[in-house]
């Protein structure tokens, strides 16, 4: 458990919270993906005045999480990275590399982290 962490239940709540954080002047730092209970844990990290705020969101197996790149454009690279490395599919990505940001059709396949 990280400091200053908030649990998010569903994707609608996620988008709403992220939108709210942007209006509060938070900066998008990064997102972390972990394998957990057959699914994946996504930890969104935001920064304001050197203080971090973390949102934890559990992605059920087979679920397609919503992309936040519509709110923070800079989220697109990290979300594309997890499409490559974890085989996730983010819905509504600003630029979708379709799992070929780093990998070629010949490379090893996900999961790679």
């Amino acid at each position: 458990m990280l400091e200053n962490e908030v649990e998010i239940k569903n994707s609608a709540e996620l988008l709403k919270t992220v939108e709210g954080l942007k209006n509060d002047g938070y900066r998008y730092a990064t997102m972390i993906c972990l394998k957990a209970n057959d699914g994946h844990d996504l930890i969104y990290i935001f920064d304001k005045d050197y203080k971090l705020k973390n949102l934890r969101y559990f992605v059920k197996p087979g679920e397609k999480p919503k992309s936040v790149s519509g709110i923070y454009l800079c989220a697109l690279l990290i979300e594309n990275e997890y499409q490559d490395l974890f085989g996730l599919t983010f819905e509504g990505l600003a630029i979708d590399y379709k799992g070929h940001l780093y990998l070629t059709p010949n490379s090893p396949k996900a999961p790679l982290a």
Partner: protein
Amino acid sequence: MSLAKSPWIIHVNCNSCNGCDIEVVACLTPLYDAERFGVLNIGTPKQADIMVVTGSINYKNVNVLKNIYNQIPDPKVVLAVGACASTGGIFHGCYNVIGGVDQVIPVDAYVPGCCPRPEAILDGVVAALSILESKSQGKIKGKEVKLKGNEVPSNA
């Protein structure tokens, strides 16, 4: 004769951590001054004689490397700088690392080290010069490198 007096090099960064790259560039700057051997760093492969490769090969850059190698006119010499370019180095065993440069193109000289010192790289370049000389006298032609098939598709 004249070729070994003014070899032009092209520097290709494959999968390197930048450590070897900055040492290769440091060789060309005033303190180590590779230009005293007539060495000139050139941007285009079509005018180059020596290919300096740093870093190992991954599934995406293997085509780039092969493409640049095929564009260099004969006689040509390939110099693998650093542990990664020689064998894969510390990254040997990563899922996206195929191995050293010699898995894809023929390598004439290796410079070991992580990172090799500029003196070592200069030694490697000088060693490459004599190979270049003998290649030009023997009129040895480098073979066009084709991929074995399973590394990477052409549209990568």
